[in-house]
């Protein structure tokens, strides 16, 4: 995992940690740097991690600006569309959530400036984590339209990545990944096409027409346009596997833009990706 976009001080501190178990790094200007290692929260110190905030590295504006500069390759204009959405993504799929001052023009966000905190999510590839789930999503040659539900940090993207790889292996046709935030960085395969950094509505429209996928996989359904795109795709003879934030199916059906009848399977993830509950299209437990 390339973590060279961090300031030298933090790179040196992280080199002492087990990066394979590193899930999250938080920098808040003027406060200790927090890391989540193997599910536990620690402070980052020059000697690795510590439970004492007095020994922690204090995040400064210079650290935050350096990270932004390195990730944007000192070219804000090239990344402003992502900045406006509140995140940046590195080529490895590391997602950096941004907090700062939004610059508005009437009701439109022009950019975010004076960044004050960053939430850096380190993606992990857990090969085989969706093997059991696959028995619910695929039966014979049929792929069920599936919605994976969980709160943030429960492994929706990791599961979707593994589902993509499993579908690629079992050769059920073309898979189109619509990767709005660039988080599927390393996922590739002979059956996989990927559209990155595009909003879902556009990517669904042109992807379904020009790439003729059998299955479309996408992360984090949000607003009305996302749901409409999924609905239209499902009417076009394309199977959809998507994810959405929520504690359970009840949360999803209460969402303003929820469209009933699209999904055949609702998968609610537990705090471990091997731990899940599956419901059918009528939301009955399977």
């Amino acid at each position, binding site marked *: 995992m390339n973590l060279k976009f961090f300031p030298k001080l933090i790179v040196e501190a992280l080199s002492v940690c087990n990066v394979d178990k590193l899930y999250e790094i938080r920098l808040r200007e003027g406060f200790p740097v927090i890391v989540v290692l193997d599910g536990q929260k620690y402070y980052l110190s020059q000697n690795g991690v510590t439970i004492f905030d007095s020994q922690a590295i204090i995040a400064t504006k210079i650290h935050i600006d350096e990270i932004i500069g390195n990730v*944007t*390759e*000192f*070219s*804000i*204009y*090239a*990344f*402003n569309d992502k900045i406006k959405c509140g995140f940046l993504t590195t080529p490895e799929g590391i997602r950096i959530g941004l907090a700062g001052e939004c610059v508005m023009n009437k009701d439109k966000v*022009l*950019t975010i400036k004076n960044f004050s905190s960053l939430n850096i999510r380190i993606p992990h590839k857990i090969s085989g984590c969706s093997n059991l789930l696959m028995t619910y999503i695929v039966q014979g040659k049929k792929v069920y339209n599936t919605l994976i539900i969980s709160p943030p940090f429960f492994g929706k993207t990791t599961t979707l990545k593994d589902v993509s790889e499993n579908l690629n292996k079992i050769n059920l046709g073309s898979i189109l990944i619509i990767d709005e935030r660039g988080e599927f960085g390393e996922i590739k395969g002979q059956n996989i096409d990927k559209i990155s950094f595009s909003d879902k509505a556009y990517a669904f429209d042109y992807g379904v027409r020009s790439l003729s996928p059998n299955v479309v996989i996408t992360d984090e359904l949000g607003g009305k346009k996302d749901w409409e795109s999924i609905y239209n795709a499902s009417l076009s003879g394309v199977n959809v596997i998507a994810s959405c934030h929520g504690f359970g199916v009840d949360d999803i059906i209460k969402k303003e833009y929820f469209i009933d009848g699209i999904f055949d399977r609702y998968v609610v993830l537990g705090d471990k990706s091997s731990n899940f509950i599956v419901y059918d299209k009528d939301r009955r437990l399977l």
Partner: protein
Amino acid sequence: MNIISGVCVFLLCIFVSKFAAEKHVKRATFYRDMYNFNKLLQSEVLFAKTSILSIVNNLSYKTDFELMLKEYFNCRIIKTNFYYLEPNERKFVENYLLSLGVGDEETQLNSIQSIAEQIADKQKRYDAESKKISGLSVKLGFLTGVTGLIIFL
């Protein structure tokens, strides 16, 4: 002995004239590179939104201007202390570097376009100056050298 001294004076005059001309040639080359880079940047920002680092990393790093960009975008060091640039020109180049990559697409394009005219003016002026002065300087050096040679002979 006189012949050797005369030839030495002749060569010295040629060398000095070449050195005097070089300053103008290098300055003209510097602004020509700056002009070309600015044009490339404008099209990259407008169409492909390529990051400046990617553009810079594709340069050949053969000229002072390209090496300066490499140093700035890879190490964040501003090095404009080229002997052929006047202090106000160094400041101009520093400000140019500092204006790169700091705004959104529209701001960056406005900044590139507003400075493009100034760069084009300088490039034209120094190109013409370089052609005129370097030609003149070499001729003058040659004539002075020949005069020196004749005096010694």
